[in-house]
């Protein structure tokens, strides 16, 4: 099954995770690697396929658009002004929810105190 991991965190969780902190990750970081590289290696070793993923710029860079009425409404900021914001996402493919939960639990932002929402992708 395919799941999207929505990475929720405070600014500090995410900033912290982007700095190199090898002790929080499985395989350790090599020079110049992003923080999620050891996670990606561990997942690949388990047979979890990583389809896509990225870190997002902060909510201050967000724009929310609504277009259901006659005009297009554009507003500065994220859809929901909550303390925690979506900081990134990963699309993974694995056997079942238990495996996806494991992947989420090992995610560098989760290890830094963020939360990971696991959502199955709809199959069409």
């Amino acid at each position: 099954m395919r799941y999207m991991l929505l990475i929720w965190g405070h600014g500090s969780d995410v900033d912290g995770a982007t700095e190199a902190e090898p002790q929080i990750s499985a395989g350790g970081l090599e020079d110049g690697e992003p923080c999620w590289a050891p996670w990606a290696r561990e997942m690949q070793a388990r047979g979890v396929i990583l389809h896509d993923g990225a870190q997002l710029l902060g909510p201050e860079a967000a724009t929310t658009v609504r277009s259901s009425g006659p005009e297009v409404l554009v507003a500065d900021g994220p859809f929901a002004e909550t303390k925690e914001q979506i900081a990134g996402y990963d699309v993974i493919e694995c056997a079942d929810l238990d495996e996806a939960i494991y992947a989420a639990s090992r995610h560098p932002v989760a290890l830094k105190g963020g939360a990971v929402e696991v959502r199955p992708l709809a199959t069409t």
Partner: protein
Amino acid sequence: MPTNQGPPADVEAAVADAFRQEWGRVVATLIRMTGDWDLAEECAQDAFTTALARWGSDGIPDRPGAWLTTTARNRALDRLRRSKTEAVKLQEVAALSVPDEPPARLDDSGVTDDRLRLIFTCCHPALTLEARVALTLRTLAGLTTPEIARAFLVPEATMAKRLTRAKHKIRDAGIPYRVPPAHLLPERTIGVLAVLYLLFNEGYSASAGDDLLRPDLSAEAIRLSRLLANLMPDEPEAIGLLALMLLQNARSAARLDDDGELVNLEDQDRSRWDQAAISEGRNLLEAALRRQQAGPYQIQAAIAACHADAQLAADTDWAEIALLYQQLGRLIPSAVIELNRAVAIAMSEGPAAGLAVVDEIESGGELTDYYLLPATRADLLRRMHLNEEAATSYRRALELAGTGPERRYLSRRLAEVGGL
């Protein structure tokens, strides 16, 4: 339901008996074969209806469980064939056609009983606690949706929605239908035991007789725990939980007086305790403890056994109970357990020693809004004849207590120490 005059009584009894024994197994097997929880339930239901119609003329089969599973499987096969619009369904039909008789339990052959898969899936942590409880009662215990709704005092439509949502979550989120692998098994087992104990307590705390249609959840919890203990013979906590339930439930006849008021353990008529249940609970506990992996349920069962062993309340071995609470507190650090230990110490060493433990809890700043903390302090002070201090604590407890029996108890005690 078939026929005008209905099936003969012996057939009806045999089907009812098979329902108690085999429902969970039939559903569990059908879910594994079809992957479709609704289809599995419907086909299992059909199989029992067919049994009512056929066992009268064909005779009651030697192995009702196998007969019912085969009948339900054939029904599922028919239904999938008829809806063979999708290629997926055809694959399912092909898979179903392979004869497959799963053995009864996790035995030497290493084959897993489907009911164990079912219970772990029903109790998966990605479902809400309410959904886990409801799903376990529906699929494994065979309670109907209206029965479960009555048990939890919610409208039938609410319960139906809760069950449907849970089944959809299992399917859509990809919750696996299996016994968890070794690295997940300990925590998931704790989760299953917690669901069963919650079920037991739900039934135990419900006042008896207020609704005759309300199913006996404690009895269902005991039945499911018995099943789990059989399916996981190497898990001492599963056996410990069954022992705990049996030992607590043995007191149920003595727990309420003629007016339906709760009777304290101390004041219960111990001749009304169920000695057969006590002796079964004690034997199970001993077998579990021999494995030398005492967990919270085994320790709580040991405490219940201490009470059961005392012919009179005055014979209770409070020193042993205090030690058991200490052991329990080491596994699950909790101020409530510590408070229970304080009471046990007061009973074995005197109120002053108990009060010292209460002081420690208070200085830790915990349980500040829990009425039993000042109530316990007040009882200990009363026993030390410090009436004025006791009255202050009883008043504090009354500020925090809810309504009902505990209030009446506290007011009575407050009057006794001259505080009214």
